């Protein structure tokens, strides 16, 4: 499914893409994408190569759209130094001024963000505490573990106290403790009125942080909204319903006669079947009658589409 326009609330829109395309020569990075994002945390989901980083680079003014318009706070981000005062970016690339210590790196970023010497020092102390790096602040960045580097990288995005945060895979390489701490921090930033666009290809990271998600694939916006809205979007397409049963072949042969069942899959592991239907309402209505028939034992039923992973896979592969 391709839904290339997503209308958010115009009044609270902070980030806006209007029919934006971005080409790299013959390769398309973002394809005719329209999107409005307001305050709070929004998850940007998509497989590798979906165009998530291109989208973030467009929104932070590092790239210029080939077509269409990008606006943040109503302003074009390309080459817009004044806007950058309100933007923080945690880039995906694992790059630093390696010779610096973590503290020196943050101080440099705070100065670049326009903070004076004292304000920079205070901000850095606060940020080091926030990202849990106070103890390791005076070690050289090149000696940091991947998790520490991610924490410092997130810290540099926060150091100018930005209103909008773009976080490109900020949890990559972090251990479970760091992951939990950083996710709590990101969630708090969103709940304090900041706009956070957070890219990931790990679904459970996003779904525990926010119900608002943007799905991208091959440069296109596949879907936008919360999980329920996305579920609504795919109502026109077959729902996948899993039925756990000891006699999967017998059940499959009975269901194959139903008009609304458009596909049946028997997993190799056995013990269940997966059916596809265009009319889940009717299917669920008829199912109890079938379950009461002799020799038809159905142990468990659940919609595969309730799982965000399944929704995601479904949307990006359809």
């Amino acid at each position, binding site marked *: 499914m391709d839904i290339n326009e997503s209308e958010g609330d115009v009044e609270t829109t902070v980030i806006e893409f209007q029919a934006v395309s971005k080409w790299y020569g013959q390769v398309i990075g973002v394809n005719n994408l329209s999107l409005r994002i307001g305050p709070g945390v929004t998850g940007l989901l998509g497989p590798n190569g979906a165009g998530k980083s291109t989208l973030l680079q467009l929104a932070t003014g590092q790239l210029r759209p080939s077509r269409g318009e990008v606006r943040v706070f109503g*302003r074009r981000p390309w080459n817009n130094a004044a806007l950058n005062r309100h933007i923080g970016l945690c880039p995906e690339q694992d790059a630093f001024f390696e*010779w610096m210590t973590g503290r020196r790196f943050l101080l440099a970023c705070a100065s*670049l*963000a*326009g903070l004076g010497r004292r304000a920079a020092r205070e901000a850095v102390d606060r940020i080091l505490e926030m990202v849990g790096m106070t103890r390791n602040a005076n070690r050289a960045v090149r000696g940091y573990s991947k998790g520490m580097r991610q924490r410092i990288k997130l810290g540099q995005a926060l150091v100018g106290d930005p209103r909008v945060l773009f976080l490109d895979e900020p949890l990559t390489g972090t251990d479970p403790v760091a992951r939990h701490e950083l996710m709590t921090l990101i*969630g708090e930033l969103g*709940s304090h009125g900041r706009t956070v666009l957070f890219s990931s290809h790990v679904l459970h990271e996003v779904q*525990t942080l926010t119900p608002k998600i943007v799905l991208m694939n091959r440069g296109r916006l596949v879907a936008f909204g919360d999980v329920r809205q996305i579920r609504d979007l795919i109502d026109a397409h077959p729902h996948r319903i899993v039925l756990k049963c000891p006699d999967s072949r017998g059940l499959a042969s009975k269901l194959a006669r139903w008009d609304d069942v458009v596909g049946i899959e028997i997993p190799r592991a056995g013990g269940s079947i997966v059916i596809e239907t265009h009319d889940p309402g009717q299917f669920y209505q008829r199912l109890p009658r079938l379950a009461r028939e002799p020799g038809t034992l159905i142990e468990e039923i659940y919609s595969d589409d309730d*799982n965000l992973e399944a929704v995601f896979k479904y949307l990006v592969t359809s």
Partner: protein
Amino acid sequence: MSRDAAVSPRPASPPLPPPSFSGRPTLSALATVLGITASRLLRGRRIWLFLLLFVAPTALLLLVRHNDAHYEAEEAERVILFVLFFHAVIPLAALLFAASLVQDDVEEQTLTYFLIRPIPRWMIYVVKAVGGALVASALASVFAALAMVAARWGEPGRDVDWLLQRAGIVAALVSLGVLAYVAIFGCLGLLTKRALSVGIFYILVFEVSLANIPFLLRYVTIIHHLRVLSIAWLGLNPADWAIDLAEAPSPSTSLEVLLGASAFFIALGAWIFSTREFRVKTPEGN
């Protein structure tokens, strides 16, 4: 969403007031760009190559001076300073620093940290170019002055004051040359990834060959104007470079050309930098 995982949206706080978009980049921000640029230039293998470029000829000169019974200080200075340094070492050293001013940040993917800050792009480039020129000219002028002193130290009839004054003029000439070359090669570094090879080609064809041909084209070379200034300020012999003083530009014109060319190429580089996209290739490889 997994069947048992519930999304728990956090309570939203009242929206923040609209942001203001006023303010200029602070001096500390520009000083940080300068500091990071200088730190990067003074690290790694580049600085050792730079030192080798300057120290090796001087060491050779000292060796010759020590072993040559018929050592001539003026001729040694001419060869080491006005042939070797001016033709090769100074443009190469400037190329070494300037070509990587932006390329290093692009290759190491650290340019993002500058581009996402409230500093106009053109200003980032100007500060980087000035930083590159400052570092390169400070080092080059010190080593060139030392080379001059090594050549002429102990010459009969020359006192320390004369040496210091001459060293100062040499340092000024070298700084002017480095500034102009950094400005040119900085632009080159923005235009091609092969800035080093293109730069060496430019030095050989333009600066060395054209400047030696007594024709109008020599006026567009940096080395010609450095020679004119060297003749005027250090009393060198114009015949050594086939320069006719009656036709050559005046020293003030040459000075203006060098400073004007530096300003022009830095401005051109700033324009290229502010209009060019620097795409960061992510591990995604999108």
